[in-house]
């Protein structure tokens, strides 16, 4: 990597990520503070709101391509989706259908549904799911960027996997139920949520990359997410789903369920994939891991 100082994506705010991801000065926010409103549902519970309700939406340029962007703020309510938060994302995706930008970049950093607005959040996530698929059907790629402190969990984990592709950092986590939820319901023997290394071996970027659940693995660096997104879009052609493609995907998912369905740790799967020293995977840097994956038997 270059000698320039890394700017951690994990630690940055949503606005800092956007500022470094997009071409300098190109970002323009929809519903800036003057016209936005905080969630009345949080106010009803005497909780502080945020004018952007935890998600920044707008337009900008990425390597001179016109893009629409949504960036969730993990530092506000864990990036969780409430009524306004969800509606902003839905509106942005509908705008993409009309405007046909080169892509929608979706900076996901969210635990899923905001429980304080549980029903509104769940329905909004369902609307986001439909809207992502509508944008893709209109030929607009939707790229999920996952590397924030809240990861992509719950319904937002499903949304990430409905996107055209996922770009992740090693620090990113992508799953359905959070380890804490599994521990609470099924016991600490099932999933010890305090075991950080285990959590990353099950939900982290390296494991997802080795399993093809994300398209690209990048360093925890805003500039790396920018390069990764540009490279991905350089080669991307958004084409509608076909029966054959969905059948192929179904077969792939069936195959790996048969092969690895009993595994309980990334280490077991990595060994089965043909990695000779699976315990070294967590120590590898991003480039080494990519090289390792390229050398694996297919």
């Amino acid at each position, binding site marked *: 990597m270059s000698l320039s100082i890394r700017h951690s994506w994990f630690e940055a705010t949503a606005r800092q990520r956007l500022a470094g991801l997009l071409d300098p000065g190109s970002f323009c926010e929809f519903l800036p503070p003057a016209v936005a409103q905080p969630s009345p549902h949080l106010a009803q519970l005497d909780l502080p709101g945020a004018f952007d309700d935890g998600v920044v939406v707008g337009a900008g340029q990425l390597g001179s391509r016109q893009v629409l962007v949504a960036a969730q703020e993990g530092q506000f309510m864990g990036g969780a989706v409430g009524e306004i938060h969800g509606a902003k994302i839905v509106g942005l995706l509908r705008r993409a259908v009309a405007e046909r930008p080169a892509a929608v970049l979706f900076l996901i950093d969210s635990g899923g549904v905001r429980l304080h607005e549980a029903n509104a959040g769940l329905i909004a996530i369902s609307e986001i799911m439909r809207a992502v*698929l509508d944008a893709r059907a209109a030929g607009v790629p939707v790229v999920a960027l996952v590397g924030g402190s809240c990861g992509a969990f719950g319904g937002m984990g499903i949304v990430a996997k409905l996107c055209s592709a996922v770009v992740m950092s090693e620090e990113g986590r992508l799953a359905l139920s959070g380890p804490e939820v599994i521990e609470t319901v099924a016991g600490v023997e099932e999933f010890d949520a305090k075991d950080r290394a285990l959590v990353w071996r099950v939900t982290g970027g390296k494991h997802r990359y080795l399993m093809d659940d994300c398209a690209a693995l990048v360093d925890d660096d805003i500039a790396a997410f920018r390069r990764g997104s540009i490279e991905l879009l350089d080669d991307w052609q958004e084409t509608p789903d076909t029966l054959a493609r969905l059948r192929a995907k179904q077969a792939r998912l069936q195959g790996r369920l048969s092969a690895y369905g009993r595994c309980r740790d990334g280490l077991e799967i990595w060994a089965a994939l043909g990695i000779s020293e699976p315990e070294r995977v967590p120590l590898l840097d991003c480039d080494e891991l990519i090289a390792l994956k390229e050398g694996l038997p297919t």
Partner: protein
Amino acid sequence: MTLNTILDALFPAGHAVAVANQVLAGEAQTALGPVAVLGTTDAAAIDHAMALALAGTVLDTVEQHPGRPLVFLVDTSGQALSRSQELLCLNGSLAHLASCVDFARRQGHPSLALVTANAVSGGFLSFGLMADQAYALADAQVRVMDLRAMARVTKIAYERLVELAASSPIFAPGAASYQKMGAIAAIWPAPSATLLLDALRDIAQARGAGDQRQSLATTRGGRQLAAGVSRQVEHAVGAG
């Protein structure tokens, strides 16, 4: 209510639906012609195998019976909670199922979901809420989480949540809340062939109208803001 009671009431002209691993698949006769019947039973916690079984039935229907309506019977307690499920990216299999239901819609298959008992979070998102319209039986439980668990996670007093739930469909569990919020078209007092036919006709008529849940929520007073905020973002000036 047993699954057979529900199937008999919905499809008096006949049905052949098999259940394996809490997943149902088969077909039934209606006055509008044959429909595919699929879904889950006994409060299934959706795992990879169930999601893939459902997705497989959707794809089979698209391939073998072009245009045939899909009737989902929903009874799910949510997603399976285990480390091995997450290791294989359970959200990915649920997304695959959702994209198959969406694909069927784009191929001209009308779809209807009926919540027969439980509809909870991830399990509901992956197929029930992907249908063109969702309905619920009167005693169905529809929710993200029950209020006691919600109180524990949000650290808001249970009594306060109960009090607010009485007036706010935003987080009060129950099919009635979801109806107000636009996600459930109507609540049926009991499974009924007549209501099913009416619903299938309504869905056929509304085809191509897109996702109408936000505007329905505005009309019904459940979500006062969503439709307006989405519209604002959709038409905001300032790009470029």
